[in-house]
């Protein structure tokens, strides 16, 4: 039987309270989001991919767990067997077995192959989303990734948090 979604904000509040921590300040955007209609159909679109599941490629430095605001460029033709995961806040067992569950690279490559999308951009971008400082994300990481999307001339971006 289907049950209501887990309320992670409420559960975090209870967990923090039981640990004696002050409440976590979740990002709350009350203004209408910036909504831009698609500029062209998806089968004519170049698609970007950004994922926060702590994915890195062999040869790259892994993420650390203390507000790591660095990111990794990963070639979108990279073999899935060279992808690794480091993240402290979710069970990474399945992602390590099959990185597509948090970084759907092969899935999108195959959809490009059958022309559901025109193509993937040549680079995807990853970071470790357990960053407690919303200020650092807003002032450093988000603008840097937005800039990469502009430079990569993507039409749409698929964002995959965990």
């Amino acid at each position, binding site marked *: 039987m289907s049950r209501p*979604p887990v309320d992670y904000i409420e559960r975090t509040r209870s967990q923090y309270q039981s640990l004696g921590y002050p409440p976590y300040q979740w990002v709350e955007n009350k203004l209408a989001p910036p*909504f831009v209609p698609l500029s062209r159909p998806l089968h004519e679109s170049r698609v970007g991919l950004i994922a926060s599941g702590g994915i890195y490629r062999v040869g790259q430095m892994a993420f650390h767990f203390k*507000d790591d605001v660095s990111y990794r460029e990963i070639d979108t033709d990279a073999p899935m067997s060279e992808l690794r995961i480091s993240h402290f806040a979710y069970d990474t067992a399945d*992602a390590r077995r099959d990185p597509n569950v948090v970084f759907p690279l092969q899935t999108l490559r195959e959809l490009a192959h059958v022309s559901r999308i025109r193509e993937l951009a040549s*680079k995807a971008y990853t970071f470790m989303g357990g960053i407690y400082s919303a200020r650092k994300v807003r002032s450093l990481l988000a603008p*840097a990734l937005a800039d990469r999307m502009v430079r990569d001339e993507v039409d749409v971006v698929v964002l995959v948090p965990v």
Partner: protein
Amino acid sequence: MTSALSITRSVNPPRAAFVDFPLGHTAGKAGDKPLQRKIMIDTLSALDSIQVPGDIRHLSYQWSDDDSWKDRVMRPAKTTATTTESTAASKQNPDDRLERTTEPQYQSPADQRAAMSAGCPGCVFLESPPA
């Protein structure tokens, strides 16, 4: 894409597709390529068809028949325990997340050796990298 509905509502992105799976499976189940593909096709369809800013499309996938995984998320203590028992249980396991340090957390020692010799191509540090 999201598997955390309350957080996505709070962040309020222009569009979202919600998959009601445990965290760490936003794009599907490990090894199940047909499911991963269906979820992505539905996600792209949401991207294509959402007209109302902030709309969250609920995709109709269910992790398991009974959804019992939802009882265990961030709740090491059994919900049926009495207050005293649940307090004791949370003392035994107060926080199951890993320690936060600035040491890179490699999946394996071999990855660390590979990174040392490769010089971290494609790594972009917006602050000073760890020493």
